[in-house]
């Protein structure tokens, strides 16, 4: 007989749930791509171009080839065929850098690979890569920081297909701005930022003559498969991508990069498994970054604070060949009520590697600009910035002309203000002091898309009382392993510690990319469908298979609850457990498949789905030492229903920490002489460390958004970063009187402050 502990007594949905993969992560037994090892494994180290613009004149590998332990130096002449890949709409074959590695001798960015050394050990491969002599004809690289738009047509090709540069327009924004009683017209700049997940990117590639198998820390295993199948001219069934654990990505591991194809080609040429792990320097050069943005924002308002015009003209820089668009206008058209609006964008090509999405792509730099402008407008109007936002709260999505599925932004503001103590604010610059320091208070809001990608999953119920759920998505640190177990436990009553979750493998049912904060929202209906189908299968087994105590019943007579099958007429107490039923019928398992459609490609959506948040920030400013520190942050999130508040709170805190880095520390610097990212290490590219982290308080409103999925769960991976920097610059202005419009805030920016302690 089953014991009471064998089934979960209450649903784990919404309960603080320690991660099921936690014991592996804390003990070194969680296997990340570069942790795998195979017999005969060889090591590869790429050779990087040391110019950013020019041509490879000569490559001399003769010395490197003779070094002990070296198997081969591959370059354009001997790497073998690597084909070009293209976008396969709607959601496959995506790559920001589509030029196959070593395709020609033109160098377009610093660190572009010109060769690859393969040897028996990492040490031998590194020494050989260093011994390859490359000579170049050099042209001056263009890494100019002042962005001017290229002359491009109004519709241009991007990584994701053709897009109009006039992103959104309504009313007559120029006329309304010209006649507005109060105006803000400012340009905001965000620098190139590098994702810098602590896990270095890398690939282990194996080629057996037919099948290409790779271990890679991918945020999108199915997309990687579709790109590699094209690049190596293989049916996609002959490519398998495995990603068990990802040492985070923040976007840098979404789309494939050239090192992966190089590792695959080397494995093909040598017939041996090849491991290629990038150095931290390479992580700054060739696996994407958030591009520099330059945004002119114009706000026109009445004296009472009602917006009459909003214009955002933004630019991002990008590489010579690519099509990356940093969508800074993502939330502009719907965040505020304003009758006259225009969002327009352009791009500027530079001798840099391709940008790629970085956490909250577009919206994060975009909201820094628009929310900073709102804060400046509030200061001009001398009204509370919270009040200004309340005055301009829209009733519907005015960009699309459709209602919001679930929007509780005003409640975010109210709750955040209460928790922070905003009512005690003295708006006068430099007026608030504590312990010899000046306090600065600031706030900001943010929004981020919600929705679903298409997803499939399978659920098995097994005779030992355990369950297995499989989905070809990834857990990049957001807690997807645990969420899947929670969903299956909720449906089947199987306790969390008896649920096996399998992710990150293209041999599984196709799952969503780990991007856009959309995994949780996407997988809920597919996993529920799979679990329901497994239960339906179980009830059929109960009525048809010899050995079942329900042989004289029909499936309609039966019910399933808390892990037990029972006749409705007899009640749950007289039911039998799943394991009992399967053992009696001599079955190991029943299985169910599930799938759900995506929402993002809907031509005419009926509702506008987004998450919302606000941040209230306190900084301290010590004029004597020009020290600025972020003390505390209160964040309120309207992110739908939160499935695991323990991991959820952590996500938001982590995003706020990244926002502190964005506001105060992070900046990839390109050397104007040679185009190299010169601070390409973790001592020179500063990121927030433990001592930089403020005291953080996170609140979830927890309103289910059932337009997204039956549980009402939206994603929360990115929203927490959006708006943080604008709140910090507002707090900095409040403390110092210095308005910083180009990130990061530097000490030298603040030296002009006349505020004394």
């Amino acid at each position, binding site marked *: 007989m089953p014991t009471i502990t064998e089934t979960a007594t209450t649903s784990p949905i919404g309960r603080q749930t320690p991660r*099921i*993969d*936690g*014991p*592996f992560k*804390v*003990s*070194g*037994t*969680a*296997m*990340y791509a*570069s*942790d795998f*090892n195979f017999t*005969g494994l060889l090591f590869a180290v790429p050779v990087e171009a040391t110019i950013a613009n020019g041509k490879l004149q000569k490559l001399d590998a003769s010395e490197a080839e003779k070094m*002990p332990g070296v198997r081969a130096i591959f370059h354009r002449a001997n790497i073998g065929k690597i084909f070009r890949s293209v976008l396969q709409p709607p959601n496959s074959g995506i790559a920001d850098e589509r030029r196959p590695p070593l395709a020609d001798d033109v160098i377009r960015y610093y660190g572009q690979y010109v060769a690859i050394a393969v040897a*028996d*050990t*990492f*040490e*031998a491969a590194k020494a050989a890569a260093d011994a390859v002599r490359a000579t170049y004809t050099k042209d001056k690289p263009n890494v100019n920081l002042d962005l001017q738009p290229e002359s491009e047509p109004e519709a241009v090709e991007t990584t994701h297909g053709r897009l109009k540069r006039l992103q959104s327009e309504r009313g007559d924004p120029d006329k309304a701005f010209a006649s507005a009683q109060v105006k803000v017209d400012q340009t905001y700049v965000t620098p190139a930022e590098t994702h*810098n*997940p*602590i896990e*270095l990117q890398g690939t282990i590639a194996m080629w057996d003559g037919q099948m290409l198998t790779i271990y890679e820390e991918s945020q999108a295993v199915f997309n990687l498969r579709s790109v590699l199948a094209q690049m190596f001219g293989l049916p996609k069934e002959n490519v398998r991508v495995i990603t068990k*654990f990802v*040492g*985070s990505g*923040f976007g840098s591991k979404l789309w494939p990069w050239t090192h992966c194809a190089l590792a695959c080609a080397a494995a093909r040429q040598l017939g041996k498994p090849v491991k290629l*792990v990038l150095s931290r320097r390479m992580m700054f050069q060739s696996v994407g970054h958030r591009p520099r943005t330059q945004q002119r924002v114009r706000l026109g308002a009445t004296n009472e604070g009602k917006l009459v015009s909003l214009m955002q003209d933004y630019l991002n820089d990008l590489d010579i060949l690519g099509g990356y668009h940093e969508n800074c206008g993502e939330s502009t058209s719907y965040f505020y009520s304003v009758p006259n609006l225009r969002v327009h964008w352009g791009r500027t090509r530079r001798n840099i590697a391709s940008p790629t999405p970085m956490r909250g792509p577009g919206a994060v730099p975009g909201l820094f600009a628009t929310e900073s402008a709102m804060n400046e407008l509030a200061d001009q109007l001398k009204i509370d910035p919270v009040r200004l936002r309340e005055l301009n709260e829209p009733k519907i999505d005015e960009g699309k002309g459709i209602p919001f599925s679930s929007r509780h932004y005003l409640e975010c503001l109210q709750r955040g203000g209460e928790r922070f103590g905003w009512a005690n604010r003295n708006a006068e610059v430099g007026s608030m002091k504590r312990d010899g320091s000046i306090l600065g208070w600031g706030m900001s809001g943010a929004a981020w898309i919600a929705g679903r990608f298409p997803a499939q999953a399978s659920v098995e119920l097994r005779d030992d009382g*355990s369950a*297995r759920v499989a989905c070809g998505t990834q857990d990049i*640190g*957001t807690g997807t392993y645990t969420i899947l177990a929670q969903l299956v436990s909720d449906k089947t009553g199987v306790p*969390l*510690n008896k649920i*096996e*979750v*399998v*992710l*990150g493998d293209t041999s599984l049912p196709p799952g969503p990319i780990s991007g856009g904060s959309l995994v949780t929202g996407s997988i809920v209906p597919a996993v529920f469908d799979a679990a329901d189908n497994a239960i339906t299968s179980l009830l059929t087994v109960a009525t048809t298979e010899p050995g079942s105590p329900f042989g004289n019943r029909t499936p309609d007579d039966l019910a399933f609850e808390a892990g037990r099958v029972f006749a409705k007429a007899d009640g749950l107490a007289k039911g039998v457990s799943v394991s009992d039923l399967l053992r009696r019928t001599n079955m190991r398992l029943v299985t169910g498949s599930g799938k759900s459609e995506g929402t993002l490609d809907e031509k005419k959506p009926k509702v506008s789905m987004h998450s919302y948040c606000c941040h209230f920030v306190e900084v301290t400013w010590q004029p004597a030492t020009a020290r600025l520190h972020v003390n505390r942050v209160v964040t309120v999130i309207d992110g739908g229903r939160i499935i695991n508040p*323990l*991991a959820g709170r*952590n*996500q938001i*805190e*982590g*995003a*706020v920490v*990244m926002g502190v880095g964005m506001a105060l520390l992070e900046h990839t610097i390109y050397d104007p002489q040679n185009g190299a990212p010169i601070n390409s*290490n973790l*001592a020179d590219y500063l*990121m*927030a*460390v*433990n*001592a930089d*982290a403020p005291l*953080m308080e996170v609140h979830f409103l927890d309103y289910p958004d059932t337009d997204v999925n039956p549980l009402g769960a939206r994603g929360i991976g990115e929203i927490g970063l959006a708006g943080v920097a604008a709140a910090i610059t507002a707090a900095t202005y409040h403390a110092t009187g210095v308005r910083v419009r180009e990130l990061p805030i530097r000490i030298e920016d603040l030296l002009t402050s006349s505020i004394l302690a």
Partner: protein
Amino acid sequence: MAGLLTTAGPAITTLAQRSEKAEQELSAATKDAIPVTLHVNGQKHNLRIDPRTTLLDCLREHLHLTGSKKGCDHGQCGACTVHVNGRRMNSCLCLAAMYQGDEITTIEGVGQPGNLHPIQEAFVAHDAYQCGYCTCGQIMSAVALLSEPVGPEDAEVKEFMSGNICRCGAYQNIVEAIQSVRQSTNRQKAG
């Protein structure tokens, strides 16, 4: 957690066997290898390695103790933190051949699923990680911190843990986890 077995690494008991095999292959491949004896997690390993091999690469690629991670190879991130004679060290900055005769402890020697160290348990309970990649280094630092002269305040723990970067930003939970173990240890001492 039984459910995740398919995603977990090889059991620690098979490691010695695996490293011997890898060793034979390597000594054939690299004629400049030198003999090195390392004491790791209480086990003695006789190796032949390239003298350029860092302690981190030796642990990962030769002994297959992959819990120590490479994040920067420059001593800047802390993901490779191990203990050498009880003190925390960035193993990427150590040449393996220079640590013969020293007692080296890696995360695998601190605790394994089913027999976790209190700090490891606390990291799970407090969700003191996200992606988990820096986590083993964080835990090696946290375990060492327990016997370092650190004051009781959160601010001091934050300072002492600032050599370990967590790009996911789980810092607040890392501090909570460490403080929960320190406070319960103090309570036990007092009791």
